[in-house]
């Protein structure tokens, strides 16, 4: 493994080396972006099919139904329904959010914002994308199998995910795909960690990094530590399925038992809880930066925010047991996990104090990235607070595996991360492609996303409290749940609306790529390093490695005399 010395790599000449097997972090970032947006669409369509089934069970799906489910007259069959929610979860978490937030923004922002010419290991970076691609391919192939794709939920608890519960090859391919994706993620993690530590521009201390980089860096560290845990888990699951070992088999249906299905849950959530923060940390970082940029004042308590992110990362490794209260762990474990879970409130409250402190007495510009960032504060507030009900053991005994949980984790992981991701796309699009996106369409997209989104996920919280549990094909076989039909159809209507408004985004994205107004090098008037160079940047980013002299959020300084209200990180801090 040979590292880069931050030297200028020769510019690729052929189409193949420029766009396909590219070593350039900016191109790899765009590859991840396209990959993520493709899977976001696929996962979104699956979500709509799921929602349709829940609101109108037995009614043929309009438009898509006759194409996909002709055998059942356009109605989603129960076994397909299980595959749909399994694949929806898997795709959104591993193949949409991770590539966009970590793959695309990570690759794009880390070298540019710390003043480097590329990642520390460009080749590893390239391999990381192509492993992710291979993994996506395996997943898509599994969708086309005769017995169908994996159908045991994205958590794929044994023994349902062993041969006892899922005999088809779909579940095996799911494991293989996840393992490959883990390889890709850890390759990325090695690269991000090393790059941030070694390639920061001269003068840039850790607290001079934008908070985006803090988020991405902590994410990479969590990835490096915990993705291998999942790797070990799915490896054992593959052995169980293919070779006939009995790590997770038990009970009367297992021919030779004495394995332990609950062990997988432990392993899965040791990875799974940090994974939640792996997904949200980049969004937190982006939002913390953008709130400051568009309020035209420094980020409030930036150091405290960075440290709160760090402490959340550490705490996230200690609380995973709250996913397993209903499995009846030992009382001591249950109590410890509840108490530890509660401590996460403290850093979370500090985030909110600092976010609101940032916009307090600002001079706020409501450009689309800012709108989406404010949206994140709103939805993450709801998502974070509803987590309290689930971290408490007794209320969790009622709410576990109901739609309350679904609403909660969609607010935190889906809504916040999605809005944060959109904020990032609108913000960095000019730098990435050298064109501006259409602001009117962006604002329509924001309100068209934000309002239905709350209809969907708040509705989920309501039906969950009403007692509707998860992953059921037709909730209304339970007479007591039939009263929830109106709320369910409201959720579905909102989902269709929200889906429709994403078309505005796609049109805006594609249209702006071609016809957008040309972007200047610094359209948002902010001072972080990537805005000191032309949009889009040249192949080696910086002709000369910049020297950093001040922090990333130097806006609204009254002592500035040069007609700007911000200063670049390469400029000496102006003091009175």
């Amino acid at each position, binding site marked *: 493994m040979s590292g880069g010395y931050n030297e200028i790599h020769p510019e690729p000449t052929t189409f193949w080396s420029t766009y396909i097997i590219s070593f350039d972090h900016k191109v790899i970032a765009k590859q991840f972006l396209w990959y993520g947006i493709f899977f976001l669409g696929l996962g979104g369509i699956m979500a709509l099919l799921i929602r349709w089934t829940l*609101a109108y069970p037995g009614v043929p799906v309009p438009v898509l139904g006759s194409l996909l489910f002709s055998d059942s007259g356009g109605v989603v069959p*129960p076994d397909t329904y299980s595959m749909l929610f399994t694949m929806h979860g898997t795709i959104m978490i591993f193949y949409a959010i991770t590539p966009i937030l970590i793959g695309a923004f990570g690759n794009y922002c880390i070298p540019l914002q710390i003043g480097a010419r590329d990642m520390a290991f460009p080749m590893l970076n390239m391999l990381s994308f192509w492993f992710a691609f291979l993994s996506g391919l395996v997943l898509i192939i599994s969708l086309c199998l005769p017995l169908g794709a994996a*159908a045991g939920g994205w958590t794929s608890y044994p*023994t*349902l995910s062993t041969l*006892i*519960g899922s005999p088809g090859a779909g579940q095996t391919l799911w494991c293989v795909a996840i393992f490959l994706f883990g390889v890709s993620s850890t390759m990325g993690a090695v690269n991000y960690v090393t790059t941030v530590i070694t390639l920061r521009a001269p003068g840039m201390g850790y607290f001079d990094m934008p908070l985006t980089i803090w988020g991405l860096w902590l994410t990479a560290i969590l990835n490096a530590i915990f993705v291998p845990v999942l790797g070990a888990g799915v490896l054992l699951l593959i052995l169980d399925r293919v070779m006939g070992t009995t790590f997770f088999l038990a009970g009367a*249906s*297992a021919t030779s*038992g004495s394995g332990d*299905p609950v062990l997988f849950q432990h392993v899965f959530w040791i990875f799974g809880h940090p994974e939640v923060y792996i997904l949200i940390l980049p969004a937190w970082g982006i939002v913390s930066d953008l709130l400051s940029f568009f309020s035209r*004042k*420094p*980020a409030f308590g*930036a150091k*405290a925010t960075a440290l709160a992110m760090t402490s959340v990362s550490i705490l996230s490794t200690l609380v995973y047991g709250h996913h397993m209260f209903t499995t*009846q762990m030992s*009382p001591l474990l*249950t*109590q410890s996990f*509840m*108490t530890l879970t509660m401590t996460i409130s*403290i850093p*979370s*409250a*500090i985030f909110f*104090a*600092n976010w609101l*402190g*940032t916009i307090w*007495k*600002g*001079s*706020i510009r409501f450009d689309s990235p800012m709108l989406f960032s404010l949206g994140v504060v709103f939805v993450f*507030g709801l998502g974070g607070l*509803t987590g*309290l*009900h689930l971290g*408490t053991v*007794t*209320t969790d*005994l*009622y709410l*576990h*595996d109901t739609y309350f949980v679904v609403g909660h984790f969609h607010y935190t992981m889906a809504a916040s991360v999605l809005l944060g991701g959109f904020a990032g796309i609108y913000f960095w699009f000019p730098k990435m492609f050298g064109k501006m996106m259409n602001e009117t369409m962006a604002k329509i997209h924001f309100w068209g996303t934000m309002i239905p989104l709350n209809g969907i996920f708040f509705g989920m919280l*309501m039906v969950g*409290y*009403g007692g509707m549990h998860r*992953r059921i*094909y*037709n*909730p209304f076989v*339970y*007479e*007591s749940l039939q*009263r*929830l039909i*109106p709320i369910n159809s409201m959720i579905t*209507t909102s989902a269709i609306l929200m889906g429709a408004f994403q078309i505005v985004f796609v049109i805006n994205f594609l249209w702006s790529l071609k016809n957008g107004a040309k972007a200047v090098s610094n359209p948002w008037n902010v001072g972080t390093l990537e805005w000191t160079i032309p949009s889009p940047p040249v192949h080696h980013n910086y002709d000369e490695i910049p020297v950093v002299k001040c922090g990333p959020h130097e806006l*609204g300084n009254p002592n500035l005399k040069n007609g700007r209200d911000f200063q670049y990180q390469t400029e000496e801090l102006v003091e009175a």
Partner: protein
Amino acid sequence: MGFLNLNASVSWWDLAKPPLDISTNGHLIDGLWNYTTMLCIFYFILVCIGLFGFAFFYSQKRNKTPYYTYGNKKKHLLVTAVIGAAVFLSIDLNIARIANNDLLNQFWKWPDPKTEKVLRVEVMAQQWLWSFRYAGPDDQFGTADDVVTNNDLRVPTGTKILFHLTSKDVIHSFFVPNVRLKVDTIPGRITRVWWEVTTPGVYDIACAEMCGTHHYLMKAKLTVYSEEDFKRWVATSEKIALNTNDPSDANLAWGWKWEK
């Protein structure tokens, strides 16, 4: 749009209320839920006041010059620390304490069949069926006189009911919305739960853990009898069981010896 044709007299808040609480301990969970929710609403309103209020008053139109501060002055740190501490002390510590008390005093206080009147039931879950086993006249499980029912659990009011549960194939979860409790049934190990019901009637039992294609059909009926009605039902069923239980029927032979 189906949701517009609502009966005007039933609001959505009423629709989304959890099902009738029929247990002696369900109110503990409902109470804690309400407490948590009240505080959550309080803090969320604070967030919204900050979010919308600041967004309104400090927009570019109304506030031309931003206040240049890093938010690292002593009073800023103090405010942040106070907010963090307030949230932790008012919500987290309280709900954790209440939950812990409820667990120790009620939910984990396992009734002892030796010292008090307890109805013991063994539960076997499989794809996609709930089976329930009562000990029968000899008070021993796994014997020929056991009363076994499928998807049909009948219990009396006024008696603590102690369940021991396991699963034959995959993980299921024994969920009775009306008593607010659920517990996973796990192949290869025995989990337990106890509750006591107060209101006779017929209710739903659901499987709450994804267990395969027909997970949604894995529901059972819970019939709550008054004590006299239950005695009558038990007497009849035991008689039927003695006459009809076939020891060679593998579907009936799943009982295990009750331990502790």
